[in-house]
């Protein structure tokens, strides 16, 4: 996206839009909203743009639904291919709504993939799935791993090819919520984080820019070799890892699979194969550094 000069980006977004490729998906984004342009300029400068006349998976538009509310509690609406899947939100949530909307586009339409609510990272050829059980802190841990050299495939969903069972990267900014925003600021002062949006349904939300190294490898699938259920627990000092059985892992991960019921038996066989190929663990941690050290050992990189 560096090909577009910053002062030309708002005009292009307001016109025919820009086509951003995130892994296998191309999204055309159109919006006159300055917050959308600012967010994209901050978080997507290293992404490849797709041919504006070529195929796009999703045509996305963010706009003010009712001009009369321009001054009184202004709102933002998300639309995909003319469909409006959500109620409008306060205008201050325009950028998070774009990211949430793009997630919805994938989880609601891309059923030729198995889609698990989880973060996915990779190092030394080891793909690790971090399922997103409520309160687990997957995004915080995923952000920290990414900032310490692990390759990000996704912060939000494991996208699994149903034939090859490979993990397909869908590299997008990492969503940080509430306390984790400050945790990551302290963890890596160089991290580029969008201005927080307050009072969203998820609390305060901000997005973290992905390092160029992960974006440059967005066409490189990974093999799942581990499934780790992280859990932030203030008393987990030192970090505590415990093996999880394949069967229990299957049930837990199936509950986090967006399209498990839709895909039926195909999803069962794909998930059991992924579980079969993976080491499965619970990991409770209080300190990010300890958790990262554990992951580094898992990938065979640790000093001991």
């Amino acid at each position, binding site marked *: 996206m560096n090909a577009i000069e910053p002062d030309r980006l708002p005009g292009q977004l307001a016109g025919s839009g820009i086509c951003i490729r995130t892994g296998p998906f191309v999204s055309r984004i159109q919006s006159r909203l300055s917050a959308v342009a600012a967010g994209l300029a901050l978080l997507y400068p290293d992404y490849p743009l797709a041919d504006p006349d070529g195929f796009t998976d999703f045509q996305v538009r963010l706009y003010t639904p009712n001009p009369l509310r321009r001054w009184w509690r202004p709102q933002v609406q998300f639309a995909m291919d003319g469909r409006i899947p959500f109620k409008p939100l306060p205008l201050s949530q325009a950028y998070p709504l774009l990211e949430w909307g793009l997630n919805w586009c994938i989880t609601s339409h891309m059923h030729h993939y198995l889609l698990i609510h989880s973060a996915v990272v990779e190092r030394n050829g080891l793909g690790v799935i971090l399922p997103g059980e409520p309160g687990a802190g997957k995004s915080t841990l995923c952000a920290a791993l990414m900032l310490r050299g692990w390759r990000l495939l996704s912060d939000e969903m494991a996208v699994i090819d149903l034939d090859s069972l490979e993990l397909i990267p869908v590299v997008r900014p990492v969503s940080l919520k509430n306390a984790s925003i400050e945790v990551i600021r302290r963890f890596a002062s160089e991290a580029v984080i969008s201005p927080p949006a307050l009072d969203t349904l998820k609390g305060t939300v901000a997005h973290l820019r992905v390092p160029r190294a992960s974006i440059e490898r967005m066409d490189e699938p990974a093999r799942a070799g581990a499934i780790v259920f992280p859990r932030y627990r203030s008393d987990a000092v030192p970090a505590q890892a415990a093996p999880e059985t394949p069967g*229990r892992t*299957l049930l837990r991960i199936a509950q986090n699979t967006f399209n498990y019921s839709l895909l039926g038996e195909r999803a*069962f066989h794909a998930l059991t194969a992924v579980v079969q190929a993976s080491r499965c663990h619970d990991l409770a941690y209080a300190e990010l550094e300890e958790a990262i050290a554990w992951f580094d050992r898992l990938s065979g990189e640790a000093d001991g």
Partner: protein
Amino acid sequence: MSDRRWQVCGRAGLAWVDWGGEVAIYHRGSGDTHLLDPLAAELLRALESGPRSDADLVSLLSELVSPEPERPPQALAETILGELKRLNIIELIES
């Protein structure tokens, strides 16, 4: 325990993955996935091949486990069959 007859719910059957100590099944009729212990899995495998009576299943269990006075095979079978029925994996055949 009367001599009832049991069968797997629906005609679509089951998909199985056996990890030794635990067995995962996918019930094609309901679309549900379940985790079973090895004994429940053995009873279900028998039922998958066709309807079975209580006596058949108790006999099968007797071959699989050593007898325990505090938990005879009849009671064990009752517990397992009750749980499989509760999960809508098996059902009684109406006589």
